[in-house]
């Protein structure tokens, strides 16, 4: 019997697992995919918004402002990158300048630092801003993170502290007795409380416990372009158009890794399972980005992707408790920036009154720092202990064999090519895995002690190699 089962290991589930792991409660996390953080939390802009945008008196306003501060603290604590590059919201005409001024007032009320920049200053700060921009509101504290780096750090620590994580176990049925029996195709688990933070499937999972659960999520897809790192110095800040009813608009993000991200657009879709890009959507991103920046000198896109926002009909986060079944639903933007505060809110409102848990002192697990960020002396010291630190598997991102091995054996473990790509970056550079993918397959196969034909690309059922000898076998 567990005290709490968390369903879903997105950024919300990871924050919850970590915060609960600092108590004496017995916690289980059930995740349907082979890798954690493989849905909404891995396909977004990665921005830690300061919280000027959400309407007054909403959970979004409350939790975003708090969450942004907590996110920065967490990143420092776990030593994962938080790039506080600042952001600008731009205006093209007088009407938009009035809107900037309204935003400025709202930001001041929420004690968020900001400054209105003149044409001259904004061009000094951001030379490649579009010619049509005439003013900008500058938010120096906006930051950007690699969502899964923070997520993995949280889950690594949760597991290190004794939380049980079960991947590849989708919750398909729930039975309510005096406690909850939560069923997956493999097994069933019992807990006193269940927290449903299943992102795009939040409403459906809620209906497993309460058949007439009334809320239906609204899915809005956003598509992105990723540029080559050579363009890193093209921008110094995150640039936004003015927010509209549809969302924050097509923006330009300077990422932690040094690529630029253009997007997302926003289109309602029926089916949350297909995070596909479309020619119309990409064309929309390609053209709308020029409302805020000048065209790049060379078109060097290395990747496109899409993410789907699980929007709620109320346009606010829905966080509610019904007989110890907690729904954390409708967590669309700024869900990433709010996530530590969402977890805190759930614990304060629902977990503490129920369990009165003890807080325990836990040791910190720090995932080894990437070699890329080390001096030659530091790297040499490691190579002396293990030559695999000297063997580079991925030239684009400067990743050694041993770093891949470390990721596979981290507390919350990684067992797919995509998981390795997220954790240690081989395949995220300009060759997109052309040079290194087969080497990652070798390492996974060796470390997990499985034949290569069982190595997963990302999810279950995504193994992809067929040994030649199987083809020629005659019966």
């Amino acid at each position, binding site marked *: 019997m567990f005290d709490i089962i968390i369903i879903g290991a997105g950024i919300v589930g990871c924050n919850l697992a970590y915060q609960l792991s600092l108590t004496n409660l017995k916690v289980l996390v059930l995740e349907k995919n082979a890798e954690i953080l493989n849905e909404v939390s891995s396909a977004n802009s990665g921005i830690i918004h300061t919280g000027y945008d959400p309407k007054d008196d909403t959970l979004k306003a409350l939790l975003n402002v708090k969450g942004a501060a907590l996110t920065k603290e967490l990143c420092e604590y776990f030593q994962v990158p938080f790039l506080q590059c600042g952001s600008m919201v731009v205006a093209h005409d007088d009407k938009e300048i009035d809107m900037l001024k309204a935003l400025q007032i709202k930001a001041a009320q929420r004690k968020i630092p900001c400054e209105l920049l003149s044409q001259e200053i904004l061009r000094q700060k951001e030379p490649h801003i579009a010619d049509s921009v005439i003013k900008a509101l500058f938010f120096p504290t906006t930051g950007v993170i690699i969502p899964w780096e923070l997520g993995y750090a949280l889950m690594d620590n949760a597991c290190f502290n004794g939380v049980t994580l079960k991947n590849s176990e989708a919750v398909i049925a729930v039975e309510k007795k005096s406690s909850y029996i939560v069923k997956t195709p493999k097994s069933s688990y019992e807990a006193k409380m269940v927290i449903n933070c299943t992102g795009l499937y939040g409403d459906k999972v809620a209906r497993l416990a309460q058949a007439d659960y009334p809320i239906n999520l609204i899915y809005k897809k956003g598509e992105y372009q990723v540029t080559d790192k050579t363009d890193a110095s093209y921008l110094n800040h995150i640039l936004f158009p003015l927010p509209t009813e549809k969302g924050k608009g097509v923006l330009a993000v300077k990422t932690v890794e040094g690529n630029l991200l253009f997007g997302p657009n926003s289109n309602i879709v029926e089916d949350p399972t297909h*995070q*596909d890009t*479309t020619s119309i959507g990409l064309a929309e991103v390609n053209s709308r980005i020029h409302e805020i920046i000048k065209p790049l000198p060379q078109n060097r896109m290395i990747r496109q992707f899409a993410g789907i926002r699980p929007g709620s009909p109320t346009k606010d986060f829905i966080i509610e408790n019904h007989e110890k079944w907690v729904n954390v639903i409708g967590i669309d933007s700024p869900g990433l920036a709010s996530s530590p505060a969402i977890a805190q809110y759930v614990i304060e409102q629902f977990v503490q009154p129920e369990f009165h848990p003890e807080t325990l002192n836990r040791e910190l697990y720090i995932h080894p720092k990437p070699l890329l960020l080390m001096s*030659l002396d530091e790297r040499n010291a490691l190579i002396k202990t293990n030559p695999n630190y*000297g063997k580079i598997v991925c030239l684009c991102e400067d990743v050694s064999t041993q770093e891949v091995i470390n990721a596979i054996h981290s507390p919350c473990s990684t067992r797919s090519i995509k998981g390795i790509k997220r954790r240690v970056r081989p395949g995220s550079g300009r*060759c997109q895995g*052309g040079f290194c993918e087969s080497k990652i397959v070798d390492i996974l196969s060796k470390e997990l002690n499985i034949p290569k034909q069982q190595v997963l690309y990302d999810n279950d059922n995504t193994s992809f190699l*067929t*040994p*030649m000898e199987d083809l020629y076998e005659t019966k």
Partner: protein
Amino acid sequence: MKQNKVIIIGGGSAGLACAIALREKGIQDILLLEKENELGGILNQCIHNGFGLHMYKKEYTGPMYAQHHIDRFMELQIPYIIDATVLDISEDKIVTVSEPKGIYSIQAEVIVLAMGARERTRGNIQIPGDRCVGVWTAGNAQKYLNMDGYLVGKRIFILGSGDIGLIMARRLSLAKAKVVGVAEIMPYSNGLTRNIVQCLHDFDIPLYLSHTITQIKGDGRVEGITLCQVDENRQPMFETAKHFGVDTVLLSVGLIPDNVLSEKAKVSLDLKTKGPLVDSELMTSTPGIFACGNVLHIHDLVDHVSMEGILVASSIIKYFEDQDSLDLIPVKSKGFLNYVLPQSINPKSDTVLLKYRVSKPMTKGFLRIICNDQVLLKIPKVDLHPSEMQSFNLTKVILDKINSNVIVELSDE
């Protein structure tokens, strides 16, 4: 800091040929660095034959051609390190390398860039659709098949009619996979004619010219693609959409010279070749840094790669004898040419091998060498194809007449 007279980065055909020629010319202090665990480069995975026709008048397989050079390289006892990845080159020619024994810097007098090329990816050409497993570059699938012994799929569509794609169409058919078709966005094929015949026609694989993939669909694994005809501006005409059920898409949509390191050394690149700008000695904009092989421009034949490596060796010898820099004479292309190499002539060169690619197929054309508005040479050409690199030797007699900007022009009259 360690020091070496010549450091060669990359142990493919270009690096090997250059190392061998340098040693044969008496240079002792050479170090070749190769990131893989064996020498030979891309040739190791090209198990088909057709290598060495020009240099040896023989049809070697890729590994045989490579072995030929590796044997000679070993015989000459040239120092090299495998599993050694060069991570950085500085403008003042300090090479940083990581290998199982450590990570360290070496001061070089001369650096030879011979890092080869990488393949253009799905992200580069922006094919929309699901992000499912089952989309690879053709070379990557070739590596899985020929080096590791694994097939990546059973029903395959190939986008791009480059040579690697064509060769993979045949290889996969022989490995009992079904190649459903090959599509090419241009109205003509981008592979060598012999490969179209031997790899597609002989296996009844349809080639869709002026077509491209507009969507990839699949839940977890690729399930199908949409193929559309394109108009004269290469824009898809969606009303012509056809669907194919396949589990794999292979991309053979071009190679890009791998110049990440060159950029770190502040070597200037050519936007067209995507390789370094070089003079007729194949020296880059940074004195003492030379380039040869696929890192310089994409080659269809390995023989030309080896010859480029040998040419660089001769240039290095000259460079060691005399490092005075003379004014370079710029070379520009005009007319139906994609590019001309070298981008400038060094007055030290006794002869200059001009290499060029045409921008469209032409049954006949005329190549003109122009200087000071005067046509120095007019050469008739037949059967020109963008997939086949052409070359022309400028002899001493012509070079003596060149004293300012040269224009190389290809026209149809």
